[in-house]
């Protein structure tokens, strides 16, 4: 019984924190968000071994994902993970095309096996070699980039471009009983990113609450602010624990894994959104400006909350296990 990272996991965390801080300081993230060009570091990421989900383990993946959120890294790594979890044999770079235009269910699709149709909010479509496409009946297909047409979409989160992708048929059916686990692991990775956002934004808020003075005192001396910060901390820590539990369960405790993963995505989605909204309140007007970093985190938190099943959807999965 040790509910803490192992020394190896800590090492991965340290490496990720340091590497991401050097490649993606927030000023650089901002540039990329405005000018595009998210892809410069991919070869290094491959060298770090991060895309190798088969080797990595889900806890380790969650540790890296948390750091991606913490750094607000504009890398398409998460999309590649998702593709690889669904399609372990994938070569080159992958992404996932899950959501039908006008569709609402996070894990279901009405796209026919003929694979003619449009998918929205597809990440990393500009750099992917292979698209893993969700079709009806929970089936998945691999489609080469050459067979699709890609249109940039207007992403809420400017650090992570999204695309509308038109499929006109032609794909290889994927097989196996691993989709459930893969899908839950993807949700946990997204949740872990939200945890990184929540932790970073909690830190930013606490620091600001110590510095900013109003009425002659640091605003952190007012309970309206200090209790809001305490609540942020509770939710950020709580989300981190439940994400790590879910990641661990996916590797070691299959019986608990799916309820854990849905718990993690539901709780972490809400936590990141709540933390960012409270942070805006703690920061006041300055946090509402474009030049402040907060809105970049806020947008990642909101976008992440709606990707791979929102909190309501995942809560229903949890309810289904108990009731």
């Amino acid at each position: 019984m040790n509910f803490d990272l192992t020394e190896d996991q800590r090492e991965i965390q340290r490496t990720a924190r340091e590497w991401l801080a050097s490649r993606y300081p927030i000023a650089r993230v901002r540039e990329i968000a405005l000018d595009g060009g998210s892809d410069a570091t991919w070869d290094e990421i491959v060298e770090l071994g991060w895309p190798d989900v088969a080797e990595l383990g889900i806890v380790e993946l969650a540790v890296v994902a948390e750091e991606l959120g913490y750094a607000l890294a504009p890398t398409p790594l998460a999309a590649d993970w998702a593709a690889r979890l669904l399609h372990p044999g994938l070569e080159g770079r992958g992404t996932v095309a899950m959501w039908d235009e006008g569709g609402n269910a996070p894990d279901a699709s009405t796209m026919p096996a003929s694979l003619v149709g449009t998918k929205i909010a597809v990440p990393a479509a500009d750099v992917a070699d292979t698209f893993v496409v969700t079709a009806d009946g929970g089936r998945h297909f691999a489609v080469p980039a050459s067979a699709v047409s890609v249109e940039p979409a207007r992403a809420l989160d400017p650090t992570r471009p999204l695309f509308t992708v038109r499929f006109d048929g032609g794909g290889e059916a994927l097989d196996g009983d691993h989709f459930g686990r893969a899908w839950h692991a993807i949700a946990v990775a997204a949740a872990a990113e939200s945890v990184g956002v929540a932790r970073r934004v909690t830190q930013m808020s606490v620091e600001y609450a110590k510095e900013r003075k109003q009425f002659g005192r640091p605003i952190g001396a007012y309970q309206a602010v200090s209790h809001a910060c305490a609540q942020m901390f509770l939710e950020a820590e709580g989300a981190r624990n439940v994400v790590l539990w879910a990641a661990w369960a996916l590797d070691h405790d299959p019986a608990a894994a799916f309820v854990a993963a849905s718990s993690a995505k539901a709780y972490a989605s809400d936590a990141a959104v709540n933390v960012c909204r409270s942070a805006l309140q703690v920061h006041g007007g300055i946090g509402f400006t474009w030049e402040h970093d907060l809105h970049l985190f806020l947008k990642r938190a909101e976008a992440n909350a709606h990707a791979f099943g929102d909190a309501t959807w995942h809560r229903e999965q949890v309810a289904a296990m108990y009731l």
Partner: protein
Amino acid sequence: MDLTLSPAEEEFRDTLRAWIADNHPGKEPEGDEASFAFRRDWQRKLNERGWAGLTWPEAFGGAGATQIEQAILFEEFAAARAPQMANVLGLTMGGPTVIAHGTDEQKARFLAPILSADEMWCQGFSEPESGSDLASLKTKAVLDGDAYVVTGQKVWTTYAHHSKWCMLLARTNADAPKHRGLTYFLMDMEQEGVEIRPLVQITGEAEFNELFIDGARIPVENVVGGVDNGWRVAITTLMHERAGLAFALQARVQVALSELADELKGTKDPLVRQRFAQIAIEAQVLRLLAYRGLTSTMKGGEPGPEGSLGKWLWADINQALTTLAMDVKGPAAQLVDDTWTYRFLRARANSIEGGTTEILKNIVAERVLGLPRA
């Protein structure tokens, strides 16, 4: 207890409604300049009808209308999706301040161009270091002959780049207690010492500005309400603004609510239905708070605490409403749409702008409930 309109009020409403139907300028164009010109034209049209300064005394070009008629106007404008008037700060704050505290010369000089939108007004109260703590502001005004020389920085200055006049609060007495040493000036924006920089928000728009003031001159005759008396002048107009605003805000919430209802019509999702209903009920609570405020202003002359409650509640409601609109989009909420994404982001500032919710709760606790100061 009577929520019906008098025959005269009903007639005003009908006249107004017919006039709007005849004169509605259609959908507002995109882009700052085009939108500004559109709103200015709309204000001029209203001013020709005598309705730009609806509640201003007739002597100053207003219609001398009652608060109820003002409320009717807000509701009718909202229901008809009519544009806002361009010179909103001049009409709701600057003009009333000059009328209440200004000299005869100031009234003669400033009021008419506010109504006609020939001279736009902006407000220079907030500073980077003085957000909620307005009394701590640092912008200095030093007397030099027949003018004050002003140095400092202001922020959240809406419409600064269109404005001729700035309602400026600046420190004239460094020795007095914090809020006793401030003076309320009317500063000419068209001079060298005033630099305007747009302040881009998280929505990507630059609705506000920063103002860098370095040696700007304000003639002594542009002091309103007396030297070192600026706090009182500013506060009374803020109170009036908040009370009037409550009505305009609640009317706009009703519009947004009906737009959201159109989108959600027929939904069977009980979670969405509950959230929508709760917002609809709270919007009604907000509206009734505005009615109550109107009643007590009309009886007591002074706005009651309803302004603070209304602003606070409005922020909660507008945030909940736009959040619901985002949430029902499902995975598509990751994308920017044409309506709700902007409103959702913009609404995040509702609990900060014009008095943070925390400050409003302080006000309610201290001034309404009589609890000790924090």
